[in-house]
């Protein structure tokens, strides 16, 4: 299966799920709120989502068709195509990021940020501990000062709030 074929299948599935399961969840209560005796033409709120998903479905079919027609002729696989790239560092980076965001309300910016920075630096093999400490704390202080003090954004305090 070529890459474009897989992409086509993915988008087609998404478009079908959207049309069959998601769009019908849009309520039709608005019909009752119209003036009873006067009939006038209007367009349902479901119209545009159906149209968008329909366009996606048609384009996915075209992509599938294109990849089938291309057949065994080699597709334009770049040298760093997904099969050859390292997904592990990306997933670890995503994991650290999600962990940081999830921890923000509980640990607060002042605790979670240096931990996140230190974890990233360490994972990406920047292991000068003095610099890690300085950068992690320095960046956190700058962020706190800029957002909390200068721009008056109430950042999550977490542990420090207690």
């Amino acid at each position, binding site marked *: 299966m070529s*890459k*474009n074929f897989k*992409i086509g299948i993915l*988008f087609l599935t998404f478009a079908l799920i959207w049309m069959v399961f*998601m769009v019908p*969840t*849009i*309520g039709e*209560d*608005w019909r009752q709120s119209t003036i009873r005796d006067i009939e006038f*033409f*209007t*367009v349902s*709120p479901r*119209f*545009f*989502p159906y149209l*968008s*998903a329909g*366009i*996606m479905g048609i*384009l*996915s079919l*075209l*992509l599938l068709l294109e990849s089938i027609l291309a057949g065994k002729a080699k597709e*334009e696989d*770049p040298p*760093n195509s*997904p099969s050859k*790239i*390292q*997904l592990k*560092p*990306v997933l*670890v*980076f*995503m994991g650290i*990021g*999600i962990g*940081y*965001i999830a921890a*923000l309300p509980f640990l607060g910016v002042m605790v979670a*940020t240096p931990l*996140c*920075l230190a974890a*990233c*630096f360490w*994972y*990406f*093999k*920047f292991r000068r501990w003095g610099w890690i400490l300085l*950068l992690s704390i320095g*960046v956190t202080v700058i*962020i706190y000062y800029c*957002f909390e003090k200068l*721009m*008056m*954004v109430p*950042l*999550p305090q977490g542990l420090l709030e207690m």
Partner: protein
Amino acid sequence: MDLLLTQLEVVLQGSNLLILFLATIVGILIGAIPGLTVNMAVALCVPLTIHFSLAPSLCMLFALYCSGIFGGSISAILVNTPGTPASAATTLDGYPMAKQGKAGKALRMALFASFCGGMISIFILIVVAQNLAAIALKFGPAERTTLLLFALTIVGVLSGKSMIKGLLAGSLGLIVATVGADPMLAVPRFTFGLLELEDGFSYIPLLIGLFAISEMFQQAEDRMGTRIKAVETASSKSKYNRLTWADIALSWKTIIRSSLLGTFVGILPGIGATVACFLGYGEAKRASRNPELFGQGSVEGVAASEAANNAVTGATLIPLLSLSIPGDTVTAILYGALLIQGVTTGPLIFQNQIDAVYLIYITLILANLAMVLVGYSFMPLFKQVTEIPRRILFPIIFVFCVIGSYSIRNMVFDVFVMMAFGVIGYFMRRGMIPVAPMLIAFILAQPFEEALRQALVGSEGHLGIFFTQPIAVSFLVLTAFSIGLTMRRNLKSRNAKIRD
């Protein structure tokens, strides 16, 4: 005239000038660091503008935009790696010049040409935008629908290598934009009872995710480990580093030609500075008296590429201001930033918010001047900047992205939205699906839906309304023509590949 002077006075306030110069420095630095893009810089700074008024916001964003494009030429010249894709053609002559000890001359020519390109395109913006808006004022719902359909299609068609993938990205943007209250009847769509989704996805977390976070994920693939080594900017012979009158005399025609080409490309939605720099370079080589010197370290080559890519900066604002159509990623981001400031782009801006238009013109001109001043003053420091390791920079930028997204509505939910779109953007990039059409479609979806539904309500559901109005028909013809032309080009290139 009084209004213009008032706006000039506003921009020339000390704090605004300070922001302008700081943003210019940051823009050049970000542009110069391979892997960091202008899109990322502008996207990152949009949350900051919430806390500013219009003038400082524009100073910051336009300074980042103009100087960031120039900044890309620094690493193109010094390390043979364009800091931004828009400077890709600059490597062809910039790096050979640097290896010959003429890095200073190449950088100065890049700066001079960038300034000229920027100023010429601003002049054309001032002349064209208002006239185009006057025409657009006559558009009804049917004309607006077909115009937006044309914009959506052309952005999708021209953004990536594959037309279908570009259009698919656009359709995904349309679907994402349907989340939230329906624009005409306020019926909630796909909100699942979540209050956070009542107004749809927040624009800023979405764009930070799509552009900055997905870029970082891509850079993480090699653990951000690629080391970069720059050539020296200084040469033992000082004449090699000066930009002489002879260089300018040799290149002025090229600069003007490339600037006009870049401006033309900038006006068309979906093409952008990368194509402009190659077009400018190719045309300069064709018209040059010394085409054999191109690729060997020709100062004309650097001038051509840099004038063309910076000429896009002013020109992309023409469709944005007059028709409310963002032509590329940065203008899509700027569109959101202007909305946050209460500035609604489109033909009515020239009637209702002319002060904002003047402010845009003035800050664009000042941003170009600041780029020259800062560029010349900090030239010796450029080499160090290009060597900053990404493994230090990206985690810091990531943290700024998170806090920036949080600060929009003080909600962790928005940060998760940013992360989700970062993941989506990453896999789209891996699948060679361009992300820009998704963002632009997300922006254009609401006006498109409104215009379409208004047109259908007006015609009581008859599609004939789109085929009876001459302007609407011409936009439909243009849409079909652009799709047909791209299909023909793709077919030709595929046949050529098979023959090879």
